[in-house]
């Protein structure tokens, strides 16, 4: 990876506003002048707490990250107030590229964060977008108005049946693919879900791009923490083509913990 022009150290930014998307998820807006593409992520420094990878969920002049509270770092992020400061390093990694005309976007839960800006950009240049958005329950959905504005068809699934299709989003996608075909599928969510979508994409002969998560430390491809079969999610990903994913033995099966141990997903 050839070195970039600017130094890899956190830029301190001020939080402008915070939007509560649902009981567990907040979007944090800040001003920063980097240029990012949908699917890229930043390393977010919460001083004295942690530095964690977050997809850029708003790419305009006002940048945004959309954070689901799952642990120490994310709960600290969710407690921040406008005017507080965080550090931003990046953007890093590969991104989604909508090359075909008809797109099937598949998101699981917070996996919508990198896909929403992709949908907006693609919609603005006239792409036809069908969205399949799955969550455990109705209360875990987010961005619904934003997504309505840029999709031709918005399909929702919930594991508990509280809204839309009752079941997993992968089952919903299987149904959709029986009726329609697409030029490509773009996907982000829990890896087990991505694996199912990758299998469906392969079965139907549709090219896939999907974004993976691994434990990140350096974020620049040298510490080997986010390694998956010789690829590094921080620089070779997070967005991988279906073709590469099909060559990764660990995909859908194993991840690495913070020690580098190979553990089941």
């Amino acid at each position: 990876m050839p070195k970039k022009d600017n130094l890899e150290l956190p830029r301190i930014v001020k939080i402008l506003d915070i939007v509560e998307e649902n009981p567990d998820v907040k979007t944090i807006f800040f001003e920063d002048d980097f240029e990012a593409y949908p699917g890229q992520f930043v390393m977010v420094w919460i001083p004295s707490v942690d530095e964690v990878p977050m997809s850029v969920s708003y790419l305009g002049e006002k940048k945004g990250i959309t954070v689901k509270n799952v642990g120490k770092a994310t709960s600290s992020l969710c407690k921040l107030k406008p005017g507080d400061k965080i550090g931003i390093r990046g953007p890093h990694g590969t991104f989604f590229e909508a090359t075909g005309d008809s797109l099937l976007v598949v998101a699981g839960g917070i996996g919508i964060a990198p896909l929403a800006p992709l949908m907006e950009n693609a919609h603005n240049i006239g792409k036809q977008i069908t969205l399949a958005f799955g969550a455990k329950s109705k209360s875990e959905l987010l961005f619904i108005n934003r997504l309505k504005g840029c999709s031709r068809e918005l399909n929702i699934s919930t594991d508990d049946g509280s809204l839309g299709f009752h079941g997993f989003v992968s089952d919903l996608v299987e149904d959709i693919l029986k009726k329609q075909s697409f030029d490509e599928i773009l996907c982000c969510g829990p890896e087990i879900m991505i694996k199912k979508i990758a299998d469906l994409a392969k079965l139907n002969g549709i090219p896939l791009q999907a974004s993976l998560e691994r434990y990140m430390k350096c974020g620049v491809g040298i510490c080997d923490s986010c390694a998956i079969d010789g690829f590094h999610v921080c620089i070779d990903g997070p967005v991988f083509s279906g073709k590469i994913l099909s060559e990764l033995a660990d995909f859908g099966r194993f991840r690495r913990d913070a020690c580098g141990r190979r553990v089941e997903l």
Partner: protein
Amino acid sequence: MPISDCDKMVDIATTLPGLKLKNPTILAAGILGETGASLENVAKAGAGAVVTKSIGIEPREGHGNPTFVETEHGIINAMGLPNPGIDNYKDEVESIIGTNIPVIGSIFGADAQEFEILAVEMEKFGVSALELNLSCPHAKGYGAILGHDKEKVLEITKVVKGAVKVPVYVKLSPNVSNIAEIACAVEDAEGDGIVAINTISAMAIDIDMALPILSNAIGGLSGPGIKPIGLRCIYEIKAETELPVIGVGGILSGNDAIEYIMAGASAVQIGSGVYYKGIGIFSKVCQQIQEFMDAHSYKTIKEMVGIAQKG
């Protein structure tokens, strides 16, 4: 100008105790070495050998993030020796052993007994040599805290030497007042060679937050800024000992590698260079070394080793 026959005879192979290297570039410990597949990639990219991540007895998460920050002339890391532990590491290292290049097993322990256990295990995995990490500057109770004490260096090296057949290299810290003295302790313990240098104890402060950036506050500086210090260390070690030395610190080009070789290194390691130049750095550095040797009529690496030493 026609290429003369001599030019074609340039040979960049090099040998060290227990190591026959097709070229003098080696992947440094802790860069891309946590997983077997990444080590394989570095081998395919043209490195003459690879060093594993430093491995300890138990799985270890290392320090919390931020663990990495860049400065004007280098990078500072405080990974804190994360590693899956020696038992889990077996699967990683076994996939590359017996392929085309030597694998050097880096280990770290809290005392001679831990080093002994780790050395024996690594040897069983089939590594070609061991590298004792007595030099990590940011992991409490490990690394440099031992490597700063020449008695400890002597003891640990002796114990490991007595426990294994493969050659034992000791990786030294530059954060000492007299590095040659520590190298002499390795020689007294009949260690097979020295690797120098590990990172230089360092920090970066964010003035907006008024806080150190790294979670551990202190980390280790590597990259271009430390090359002059690494060179000086090799030069001082070579002046005092007969041990073969592997030079490491800030190597980004063939010329950097040749500086190290002329200071006394028989081979070099590249770590941060992977960040600055990508994994292609190994073949690039080899090509540049070859070009330099061609242009200056050197035929072997050996001819250049230590020729800058005065007296």
